[in-house]
């Protein structure tokens, strides 16, 4: 197959991935609820006016809750809602963007890295095939499918922000064109939430590691100097762009009695450390390295189907036996680092070292390390599978490659199916009488909302809507 056909195929897959979520919800349905409520999909403008613009929790005794970081994204939703005028379509649109952009960004990353590793890969269909496979692995492996699609929080946007930002930075390092740098900064502004205190675990799990990886590539593979001036300039612009949401947190930090102030300055440090470690140890007791190596969800695996997932580590090992590319080796090192942080339980010394890291201020944000390192781990896992597939595609017969494609596609089909058919976003409410999460807003309820709520800012009326209120 010619490379140009592969490129068309990649665009076709991205388009299909964009369309698929439009079949998940029936007309009028919404998957509201969860930790964030997701009411910003129902009425983004009202959500902006009632919640985002005020630093007060609209319940209880009205504690401080600074959530300015979501203003740009919810504003974008408001603009989209103005044109689309349907929460169902808006939810589907956002899900479609997440899926297709995650796949396409990942495809571009792998292609770019393969070209960097071996320039002749530019015209090889195998490189495109490997990049597409890696992109599909990234969105369809069990850890990714089970990684937060059900009533997704806004932080779940990291599924496409991580590869998108990585690609933009990679292109910047390869071409030195500032346009990629500016695009990356624009992304950080629109999705400020993913660069805020609310997303700090996901941010610190992915970006420091990835920036280190890119800098090593720049120095070692591209043989170029590190553009310190531009990076420093970018950092300053990034801080300025984010100042609208960072400054209130800084003020809150130094306001006596605020939650953040108490957390940082008043809490007994040893008991805080102990609480973080206790949580970490309880999570770690259920984590298995063997499942991580096969990328199976911890604690939830079917014995017979699970055996199919051995194809991933086998592909990686065989790939390393056949390829000597330096980029491939660096990918491998970063894969192992992310796996260490994702699994924690690699020898007693490794576990003790991990626990010692909790003495670093702020590291306790990784107490639920398995969830917080998930997307970083998936990223390097998919990267290494893509590179391994390419290494094998170049060295073994075509028949064997077809066997390998079938061997990889079979387990991926089983893990992808709940996402493709939408059942992952339409689960049944726990302990309910078969009540699905996705529901249609009752018109009479909407009428109650329109007529019963007094038009006063001093009064609040609570109406049960979903599991979170």
């Amino acid at each position: 197959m010619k490379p140009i056909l592969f490129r068309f195929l990649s665009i076709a897959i991205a388009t299909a991935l964009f369309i698929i979520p439009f079949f998940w919800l029936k007309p009028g349905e919404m998957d509201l609820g969860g930790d964030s409520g997701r009411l910003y999909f129902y009425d983004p403008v009202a959500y902006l006016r009632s919640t985002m613009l005020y630093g007060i929790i609209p319940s209880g005794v009205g504690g401080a809750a600074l959530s300015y970081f979501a203003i740009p994204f919810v504003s974008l939703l408001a603009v989209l809602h103005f044109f689309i005028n349907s929460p169902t379509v808006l939810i589907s649109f956002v899900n479609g963007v997440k899926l297709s952009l995650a796949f396409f960004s990942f495809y571009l990353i792998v292609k770019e890295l393969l070209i960097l590793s071996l320039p002749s890969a530019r015209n090889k269909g195998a490189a495109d095939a490997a990049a597409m496979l890696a992109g599909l692995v990234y969105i369809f492996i069990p850890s990714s499918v089970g990684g937060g699609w059900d009533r997704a929080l806004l932080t779940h946007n990291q599924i496409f922000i991580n590869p998108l930002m990585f690609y933009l930075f990679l292109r910047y390092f390869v071409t030195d064109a500032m346009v990629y740098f500016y695009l990356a900064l624009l992304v950080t502004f629109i999705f400020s939430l993913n660069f805020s205190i609310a997303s700090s675990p996901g941010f610190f799990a992915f970006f420091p590691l990835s920036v280190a990886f890119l800098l090593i590539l720049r120095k070692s593979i591209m043989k170029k100097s590190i553009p310190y001036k531009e990076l420093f300039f970018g950092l300053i612009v990034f801080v300025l762009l984010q100042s609208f949401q960072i400054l209130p947190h800084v003020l809150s930090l130094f306001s006596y009695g605020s939650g953040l102030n108490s957390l940082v300055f008043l809490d007994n440090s040893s008991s805080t450390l102990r609480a973080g470690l206790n949580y970490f140890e309880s999570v770690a007791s259920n984590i298995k390295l063997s499942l991580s190596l096969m990328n199976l969800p911890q604690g939830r695996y079917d014995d017979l189907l699970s055996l199919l997932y051995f194809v991933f580590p086998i592909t990686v090992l065989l790939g390393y036996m056949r390829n000597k590319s330096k980029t491939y080796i660096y990918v491998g090192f970063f894969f192992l680092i992310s796996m260490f942080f994702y699994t924690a339980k690699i020898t007693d010394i490794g576990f003790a070292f991990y626990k010692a890291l909790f003495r670093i201020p702020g590291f306790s944000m990784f107490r639920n390390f398995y969830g917080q390192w998930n997307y970083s781990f998936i990223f390097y896992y998919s990267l290494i599978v893509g590179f391994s597939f390419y290494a094998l595609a170049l060295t073994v017969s075509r028949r064997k490659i077809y066997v390998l494609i079938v061997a990889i596609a079979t387990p991926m089909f089983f893990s992808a199916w709940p996402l493709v058919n939408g059942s992952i976003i339409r689960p049944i409410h726990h302990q309910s009488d078969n009540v699905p999460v996705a529901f249609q807003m009752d018109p009479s309820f909407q009428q109650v909302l329109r007529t019963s709520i007094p038009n006063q800012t001093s009064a609040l009326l609570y109406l049960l809507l979903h599991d979170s209120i």
Partner: protein
Amino acid sequence: MKHQEKKTYLTKTKDIVLAHLHAYKQVVLTLIVLLVVADVLFLKESSDIRIFGILGIYIWGILMYKLHSNYTFFMGLLSLFLMYILFLITGTSPSTEKAAVWLFFFLGIGMIQRLKE
């Protein structure tokens, strides 16, 4: 004089040991493989001293016999095979986990070797 004799004796002994080690390369490497297999299959408790001890011997083997990185990746495949069998029989038992830890280390060592090659 006595010191010189002792030194010559030690050098000779070292040469003999090294010659034997070189002559019995396959035996030594088989022993290392057996140590890994025994650690995974027969010893219930995980021990860092044992894991890093065997790894130390293996790294010494790499330096001594100038082993190619593919040999280490093959050791990784062996660990994966053990992990597969144990996963099939015992699920995520401590033995399966030990095989996974060996796979992790062989992958890491293999990559370092590959980088040097």
